[in-house]
């Protein structure tokens, strides 16, 4: 499948010229904008919301707590003496005023901005974004995620300074809120002689973004330029650059051929899988040699790619070396297994659940069983390693494993493993 890309028009609501420019751009026959980020508290917000209510596009909320005035009445930690939000500096990226913000006030303002959106646009936002990605700060992130879960909508990946921000980004994954993986801020400066070679730059952009994993988002500032805009924003003339791109058919063709253009609406969380299997109906027992073919079959069907497939000869060796295996049985059918290698110290080696039965807590049951066994054997800690930035890390965090290191190139060039450890005594 082609690489998925969300293209977001930034700052809808900033002022009339920006609103008009965005409308012009989305109606252009070569428009590749899929998402519109609406500002709730800017001079043109009410006008933009009126326009948005009749648009078919996916409209997200661009939470804004660092420019203009709050929508809620009492948020003393967020504002200066004149009642404006305390200022940040995007050039030096001085966001130190966030230190003074109380989480309670952030939460109150977030409620007010979301309420404003629903009231004025007539529907819930397609996603929660923040104007300068303030939600890369944990103080903003936590209320943000709560709200996104409550509304059942995705969030933009919480980068900081538009760069990777692992702690916050993994928190979003861990909380199960759908999100993007990377975000690219506009095309910034086109290269070429003093910056003008649209075709070449587009090729470079496509190459760079295609190499990124997961869903990417491109944020484009769009707008007509007038005096008001010059007063409101340091990003002014740049907003008119998009029009030159739109009028270029070749660029439109390249973009649409290279990406599957989607919106935040397309990554809304699906309704939760119902827990259909009662834990009482699952039986976990120590495994023996007769279970080898079950292990091989479960590994094939666990939904993860594997560097190598289990074979009977390999399993025999592990068994002979003393590796302990447990198997989960549901209605006489083996559906999962776990193992620990205690040769030197306790290392959780395999944990697989048949994909058909995932989401029922079977992996957690297997993990608990094996940790009890490790403790019984007299170990105070257990460790394991998994692919870096995989959902397996989230699973380990949930089971109180701590990240203790990185195993470079464990799975091949640039494919690192993260090493995790759990203290069993503290349980």
């Amino acid at each position, binding site marked *: 499948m082609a690489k998925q890309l969300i293209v977001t028009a930034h700052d809808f609501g900033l002022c009339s*010229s920006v609103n*008009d*420019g965005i409308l*012009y751009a989305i109606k252009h026959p070569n428009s590749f904008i899929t998402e519109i980020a609406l500002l709730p508290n800017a001079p043109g917000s009410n006008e933009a919301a009126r326009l948005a209510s009749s648009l078919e596009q996916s409209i997200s909320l661009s939470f804004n707590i660092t420019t203009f005035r709050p929508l809620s009445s009492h948020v003393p930690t967020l504002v200066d003496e004149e009642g404006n939000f305390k200022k940040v500096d995007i050039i030096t990226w001085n966001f130190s005023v966030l230190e003074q913000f109380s989480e309670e006030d952030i939460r109150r303002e977030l409620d007010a901005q979301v309420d404003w959106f629903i009231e004025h646009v007539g529907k819930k936002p397609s996603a929660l974004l923040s104007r300068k990605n303030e939600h890369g700060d944990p103080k903003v992130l936590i209320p943000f995620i709560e709200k996104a879960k409550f509304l059942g909508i995705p969030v933009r990946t919480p980068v900081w300074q538009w760069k990777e921000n692992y702690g916050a980004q993994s928190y979003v994954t861990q909380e199960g809120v759908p999100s993007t993986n990377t975000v690219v801020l506009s095309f910034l*400066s*086109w*290269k*070429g*002689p*003093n*910056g*003008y070679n649209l075709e070449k730059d587009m090729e470079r952009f496509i190459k760079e973004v295609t190499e990124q994993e997961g869903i990417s988002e491109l944020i484009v500032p769009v707008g*007509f*330029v*007038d*005096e008001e805009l*010059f007063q409101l924003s340091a990003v*002014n*003339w*740049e*907003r*008119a*650059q998009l*029009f*030159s791109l739109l009028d270029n058919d070749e660029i439109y063709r390249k973009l649409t051929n290279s990406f599957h253009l989607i919106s935040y609406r397309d990554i809304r969380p699906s309704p939760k899988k119902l827990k259909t299997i009662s834990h009482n109906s699952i039986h976990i027992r120590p495994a023996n040699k007769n279970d080898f073919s079950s292990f091989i079959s479960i590994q094939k069907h666990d939904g993860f790619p594997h560097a190598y497939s289990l074979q009977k000869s390999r399993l025999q060796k592990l068994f002979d070396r003393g590796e302990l295996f447990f198997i989960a049985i549901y209605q006489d059918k083996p559906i999962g297994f776990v193992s620990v290698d205690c040769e030197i110290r306790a290392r959780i080696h395999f944990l697989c659940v048949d994909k058909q039965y995932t989401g029922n807590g079977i992996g957690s049951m297997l993990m608990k069983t094996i940790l009890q066994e490790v403790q019984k054997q007299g170990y105070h800690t257990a460790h394991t390693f998994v692919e870096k930035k995989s959902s397996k890390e989230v699973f380990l965090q949930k089971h109180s494993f701590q990240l203790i290191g990185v195993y470079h190139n464990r799975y091949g060039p640039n494919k690192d493993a993260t090493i995790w450890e759990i203290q069993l005594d503290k349980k």
Partner: protein
Amino acid sequence: MKNLIIVADDFGLTECVNKGIIKAYKEGVVTELSLQLFSPGTENAVQLIKKNAINNVGIHLLLYNWLETGKNFHRDDYVKLFSTSTTQDLQKRAKREFDTFQKLTGKLPTHIIPQYNIHGNLKVLDAICIYAKEHTIPMRIPRAVLIKEHLNENYAAETFLRRSGLRTTKHLFGQVLGSNLDEIKKYFLSNLKTVQDGEISEIYLHPGYVDKQLLLLSSLRYERARDLTLSLDKNFKKSIEALGFKFSTYTNAWQNN
């Protein structure tokens, strides 16, 4: 002394462009405006000249009437026009614009700056020189931008102009396209560094705001807003002054020297 004239081209294109040019003139480094006739924003431009009592206004010669053609002339249109017109035809077109300029502003133009440097074409230059000589009006140096994007030297036209005794600058710098503002600033400053004492230079800019009307009328869009930003850039201004330049106009640059 090094004199530098900074001209805003296309005054009169649209109201939105006019508004940006006025800001660049009043608050920025622009010293001289170049007014185009028979264009969608001409009337508004003339009002702005009077309202703000601006004296340094020259003519941005188009040789076509926008209100008749309904569109602007591209390079190809000019090439076609020149191959099918006599000097007399071109002279007539030019005169219509000169007369209208005087009628609307009540003054003579302070300079003659033909669109796209079309006076790099000798037939056009010949046609314009008659009027310029009659009223002693300086003219932009006729570099060869009609053929290429770059300001290539144009020996024949430049020599022709010099021999006619009309005033023109020694240097002309411009950077129309480009989205890397830092690089554009560097380009201007490195070129200005090469200017010798006693020489007169011109920089041309296209400041303006951007609206829907502009998108329909012109291929220069964000570039205008970019040039407005450049005009208002205090550091850019300081860097030019630090190179020993004095900001001048087509009227006083030769007196200052």
